[in-house]
């Protein structure tokens, strides 16, 4: 009887997992149609501070509802030359968290990078430039907390004037920066002219489902 019960339990658990795996998919970016980066909004942050600082905990899931993006960030570090690692170009649907900076929800500027395109496919942040102020971004963290960020500004800056300190530095509150490429693509150099940076700050935190 116990054997039978164990078998039934295992079967039910397996069925539940299969069911969840079929309905819970969506860890990749919604494909976006190619379009040049344009109409970037420049907004001065004015949201009142609500510093609910959390301890350090890696991001496990990044969701941008308006863009239909749900992705599990990988971890990025530094290359030997001191530049930041980015997700591989042949997997442009991935996003990566700069793990030598702040974690989302922690005080500091947590940085998540993603491609605008790669190998002929739309990247996870292909439509990042279309975000607008007050759009929400949620991050599920490893400690089961969920941090909701509100977009403060979306900026397009020349790579030659990339504001590294503003992006990676400490804004004094829990911030989130999403970074991708933008502008025009220079075939001679093989690089985009600009970067698109979304600045967001934490507005709420809560307990996630475990």
């Amino acid at each position, binding site marked *: 009887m*116990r*054997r039978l*019960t*164990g078998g039934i*339990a*295992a079967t039910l658990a*397996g069925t539940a*997992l299969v069911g969840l*795996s079929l309905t*819970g998919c969506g*860890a990749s970016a919604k494909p976006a149609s*190619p*379009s*040049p980066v344009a109409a970037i909004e420049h907004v001065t942050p004015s949201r009142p501070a609500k510093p609910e600082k959390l301890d*350090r*905990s*890696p991001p*496990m*899931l990044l969701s941008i509802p308006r863009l239909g993006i749900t992705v*599990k960030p990988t*971890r990025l570090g530094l290359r030997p*030359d*001191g*530049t*930041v690692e*980015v997700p591989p*170009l042949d997997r442009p649907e991935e996003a990566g968290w700069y*793990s*030598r*900076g*702040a*974690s989302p929800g922690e*005080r500091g500027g947590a940085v998540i*990078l993603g*491609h*605008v*395109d*790669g190998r*002929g*496919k*739309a*990247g996870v942040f*292909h439509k990042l430039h279309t975000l607008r102020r007050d759009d929400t971004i949620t991050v*599920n963290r*490893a400690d*089961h907390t969920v941090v909701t960020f509100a977009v403060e500004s979306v900026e397009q800056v020349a790579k030659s004037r*990339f504001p*590294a*300190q503003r992006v*990676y*530095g400490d804004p004094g509150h829990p911030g989130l920066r999403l*970074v*991708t*490429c933008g502008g*025009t*693509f220079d*075939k001679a150099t*093989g690089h*985009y002219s600009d*970067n698109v940076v979304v600045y967001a700050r934490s507005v709420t935190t809560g307990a996630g489902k475990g």
Partner: protein
Amino acid sequence: MRLVRWTLTGAALVIAALSTAQPAMAADKGWEKVTYSIDDPEAAEKLKLRVADEEKPAPAKPADPSEIVVPKGAPDTGDGSLAAGAGIPLLPIGGGLLAVGAAGAGVVLIRRRVGAGA
């Protein structure tokens, strides 16, 4: 009668021993499958579970935010494969236009020559 009683008792003991050992094995087998699914990063991703990475310690970061390592340069996040105009070979198009133009000029010249001779 005594033999029958001992036989039945022995059989009962054997059945009891098996019934305590096998269910545990069966249950372990079942959980092995479940655990394997959860530990599989892809399955965990689909399930939106945060199991595999939970046990990994968070990467070290300086306590002082001013000591955060700021990467050099600007991130290069794209290969231009979907950029407007990127990937279109301008030279071949230009060459094609030249060829079409030259052919058209030839046709015009031929017509003119034909017309001139007529």
